[in-house]
């Protein structure tokens, strides 16, 4: 465990030593801020109409503002997470520091978990910035806290899935740009897989939408923790990390 923490801290400090951390955090904060503002403006217009007796009976800030905001935030994650994961293995392989890690008394699992937690740490820092926006809502409005908390949990889990895929892809190449682009392409595929499903037959659609990462996010955004979704995300992450371990081991044999 000590080793995992040492490795995660090294990952995290290398993000912050390079421009990566500031770029992704800035990008994330900017886009999140934009969506926040747009949705808030929309929400205000709606409430205005409602107060004039033209809208629906009740205005729920959680449903009308926070849930869509989370959905939009997952889209931003789709863009920025490849930037976080693309260098994790690729850069170590290119520069030769992978020799240091693989000849240190560490297990592959420790190394992978260290990298995973390091990337999760940066992602969590990105999410932490958005707490400010939420604080504004809590200050001026009266949202329920529960859907907000589950929304963040969902964001972390969904990010975890992407990061585990990103680690796997980064472990396959020395070139971090290639890793980043392939990761983005794969994320996008995991994203749209249920749209593809809607053109296929009903069985295929059920299967594909089950595979879709974002499909499982809906309930979290609505404040529901469904064990099904939780199990899906956790097993997705574990499977991704498992494949990464396999890939690292195969590389080892190939030299």
């Amino acid at each position, binding site marked *: 465990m000590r080793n995992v923490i040492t490795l995660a801290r090294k990952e995290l400090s290398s993000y912050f030593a390079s421009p990566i951390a500031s770029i992704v955090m800035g990008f994330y904060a900017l886009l999140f801020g934009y969506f926040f503002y747009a949705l808030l403006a929309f929400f205000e217009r709606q409430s205005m109409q409602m107060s004039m007796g033209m809208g629906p009976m009740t205005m729920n800030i959680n449903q009308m503002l926070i849930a869509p905001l989370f959905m939009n935030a997952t889209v931003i994650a789709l863009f920025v997470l490849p930037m976080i994961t693309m260098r994790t293995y690729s850069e170590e392989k290119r520069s030769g520091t992978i020799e240091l890690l693989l*000849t240190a008394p560490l297990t592959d699992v420790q190394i992978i978990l260290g990298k995973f937690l390091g990337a999760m740490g940066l992602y969590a820092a990105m999410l932490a910035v958005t707490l400010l926006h939420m604080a504004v809502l809590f200050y001026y409005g009266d949202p329920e806290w529960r859907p907000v908390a589950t929304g963040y949990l969902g964001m972390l889990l969904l990010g975890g899935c992407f990061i585990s895929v990103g680690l796997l892809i980064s472990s396959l190449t020395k070139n971090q740009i290639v890793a980043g682009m392939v990761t983005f392409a794969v994320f996008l595929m995991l994203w749209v897989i249920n749209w593809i499903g809607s053109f296929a037959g009903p069985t295929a659609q059920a299967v594909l939408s089950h595979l879709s990462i974002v499909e499982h996010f809906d309930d979290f955004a609505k404040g529901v923790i469904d064990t099904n979704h939780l199990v899906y995300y956790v097993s997705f992450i574990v499977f991704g990390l498992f494949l990464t371990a396999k890939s690292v081991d195969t590389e080892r044999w190939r030299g």
Partner: protein
Amino acid sequence: MIEVQHLTKRYGPFTAVDDVTFRVEAGEILGFLGPNGAGKTTTMRIITGYMPATEGKVIVAGHDVFEAPIEAKKRTGYLPETPPLYPDMTVRDYLTFVARIKGVAGREVRGRVDDVMKRTHVADMASRHCAKLSKGYRQRVGLAQALINNPDVLILDEPTAGLDPKQIIETRQLIKELGGSHTTVLSTHILPEVSQTCHRVVIISKGRVVAVDTPENLTARLRGSETMFLQVAATGGEIEPALAGIPGVTRVAVTPSGDGTLGVEVDSARGHDVRRDLAAAIVGRGWGLLELRPMRMSLEDIFLHLTTDESTVEAQPEPEAVDA
């Protein structure tokens, strides 16, 4: 301290290391000498547990590298061909990180870092980023990193490659100083390097061990002498003093062959052609000279591919810079 037994490594159909066996005693500095592509790096990567072997076994400080990798790795320090530095870390942060992952106890980390920085003379660069270090300093920080856990075994892959002559001398001096407290294997493709630093040499070529000897014997065999092989019909005993008396002859070795004749190996100083004198001495005593031919050592072929001239070291292209 290190036992390498029948090590074979294949990359697909290509055999990079072929049935390599040698051992290194505690406190010894062993030179691993061979031309580029001989399989030095591959062998070292297997010893350090970076990659598994296709066949064979490596035991480091009593631990099998494949069966107990963590135990073996705890006792090993490794400097790869390119020092594995993180460009955006300072030297001190980097060494602290390595100390932690190498299992140095938390309260000892600081002391160890200071100690290795002092021993490798990098203390004045402690707060410099690794990206901004010169080639010589990178190599030394690489060496510091290998020493951080005070390992029983040090594996150094071409530690002087790409350094300038002054740095080369310093690095060799450092390795010699370290030799007493660590069992060291260092690889090189430069012949004089081993005679200056190592107690013993393993010569490897095309993945096979072709000679194991002390540097003195090897250099003598290479530089100082030529060897003749003679087959003589004579009774033993008298032939050795008769031939050893010839000017220029440095060594005579007689081995009786099964058919009643004698096989004789004669070393002579280079530049002395002793063939006429040998023939005259044998025929003059009434013995039968059945054969006289120069022995071409297979070693020589290999040496031809080794860099013997140190000045050519600088002409080697430098490996690309790590990162800026």
